[in-house]
């Protein structure tokens, strides 16, 4: 597409229009940041103006009110643990489903694919009962188990498509050289799957980190709150206290924005390949 036309006057006009459009697009972030450092009176007077004095104390109050340290680490623990376990078990399952083409495995794969259609809200009510019955409620490991269950269908599906593209000859050669099936998977197939690991981990991170509904049903203790739950609780308690709410929102979005800016190349690639295969 891009090499067809050179940089012309029309392209320059497009460039200017797009830059203006992007600035308009980002205005909500301007309002968010600017007002997060205003005193309450300053904020009510004029929310468009630049702050007359930087009230960084807002951030300190927001930090302690939502117990940001705990919320941040809870979110990190749940996201990282769920991701690593999901990537491991899904890649192993997908590999087995492709290489052992039994009737059971074909049925299982069909079930995974079919389950991708089920909306979370369709099973959340009995899920609460099931998780309570087996002691998964109100614990981070319990929440992680839930993410494993919900994440497996899409992750297996993505790895399944990828495994089919791995040539069988490499594995056969390794088997002839005396490698066990586990050795073949972990030493040969696992490293080859790297691009798909990136895709799966990116998609699952964006989902798990931002998820509100599932943790809100599973966790009840204050010290287990993840960032979305802590934010929701703050809004329930202090309505319209924007000088407290806005810095809390900035704190809440900062980690994922930084993650995105650092990883944006992978995120954009991951989304593209996830969409093409999904």
């Amino acid at each position, binding site marked *: *597409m*891009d090499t*067809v*036309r*050179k940089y012309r006057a029309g*392209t320059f006009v*497009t460039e200017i229009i*797009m*830059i203006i459009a*992007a600035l308009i*697009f*980002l205005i*909500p972030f301007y*309002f*968010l940041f600017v*007002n997060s450092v205003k005193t309450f009176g300053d904020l*009510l007077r004029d*929310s*468009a*103006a630049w702050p007359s004095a930087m009230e960084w104390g807002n951030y300190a109050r927001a930090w302690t009110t939502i117990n940001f340290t705990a919320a941040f680490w809870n979110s990190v623990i749940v996201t990282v643990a769920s991701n690593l376990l999901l990537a491991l*078990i899904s890649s*192993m*399952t997908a*590999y*087995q489903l492709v290489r*052992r083409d039994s009737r059971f495995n074909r049925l*299982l794969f069909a*079930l995974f694919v079919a*389950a991708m*259609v*089920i*909306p979370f*809200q*369709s*099973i959340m*009510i*009995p*899920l609460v009962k*099931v998780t309570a019955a087996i002691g998964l409620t109100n614990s981070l490991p319990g929440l992680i188990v839930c993410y*494993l*269950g919900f994440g*497996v269908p899409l992750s297996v599906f993505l790895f399944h498509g990828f495994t089919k593209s791995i040539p069988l000859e490499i594995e056969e050669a390794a088997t002839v050289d005396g490698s066990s099936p*586990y050795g073949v998977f972990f030493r040969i197939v696992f490293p080859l799957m790297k691009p798909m690991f990136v895709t799966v981990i990116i998609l699952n991170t964006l989902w798990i980190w*931002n998820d*509100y509904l599932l943790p809100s049903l599973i966790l009840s203790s204050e010290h287990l709150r993840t*960032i*979305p739950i802590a934010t929701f609780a703050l*809004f329930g308690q202090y309505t319209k206290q*924007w000088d407290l*709410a*806005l810095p809390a929102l900035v704190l809440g*979005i900062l980690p*994922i*924005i930084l993650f995105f800016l650092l990883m*944006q190349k992978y*995120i954009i690639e991951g*989304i*593209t390949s996830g*969409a093409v295969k*999904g």
Partner: protein
Amino acid sequence: MNRTKASRLLQQLIFVGPSTLFFALIMIIPFLLGLYYSFTNWNGVSSQVQWVGLDNFITIFTNDTKFRDAFWFTTRFTVLGVLLTNVLGFFLAYLLTKPLKTRNVLRTLFFMPNVIGGLLLGFIWQFIFVKSFAAIGDLTNLAFFNLPWLGTKGTAFWAIVIVFVWQTAGYLMVIYISSLNNVPKDILEAAEIDGASRGQILRSIIIPLVMPAVTVCLFLAISWSFKMFDLNLSLTKGGPFGSTESVAMNIYYEAFTNNRLGLGTAKAVIFFVVVAIITSLQVRFTKRKEVEA
């Protein structure tokens, strides 16, 4: 012989066992239980759960205007949201595949809202609609910004559409960009040499060739908007007067606020059936397109 059989079974167990176990525990069992509870009067408190046959479904279809309103809201929202976010996403992608000097930065900026979860975005926009729009209205005197955005039924609907499009257009843009980049350059060059206008190239060459991406993007947008929960929970809480209550929210309130879990699961089953029908139609449509592409 027996040993290899045993070791194959062990391998199957190790490779497939964990994911199957979690999947069965977290998705299959609750799903089947949900089917059962949808025919009962389960309220979560009393241990007696009675079979009530089709009563829940009859109640929902004949005597539940809130559920019907929620469905109608969700349908209207889905149609408009899907259409607008795809048009904007495609338009951004089309312009960002031109040789702009800043296009990588622009791509990043347009995508950024998407990495933030719907719940936090809803709260951020609550502030924008309530406070910032008023401030912009004072500065510019535009009536658009002085509307009571979250206060009336009509404007609250559009408020959610605006935030949804703002959040999701960048994601679809990324998919459209990769599809546009795969349009063969020699076809475009040939068309240009033959004197085709830019509009003609877009209509007759580019759009037909990106149809597979269109179907993927439609599918994604439909599934996001139809299942929406977080965004309107934090932006409007379903208000004013329940006018922006989505189906997902209605199910949630029925089960966890009204404690009518049997009725809630019946709604959840209906929700599942509708989503499954829409999705399978969409997948069939996608498959047909793949053959052409």
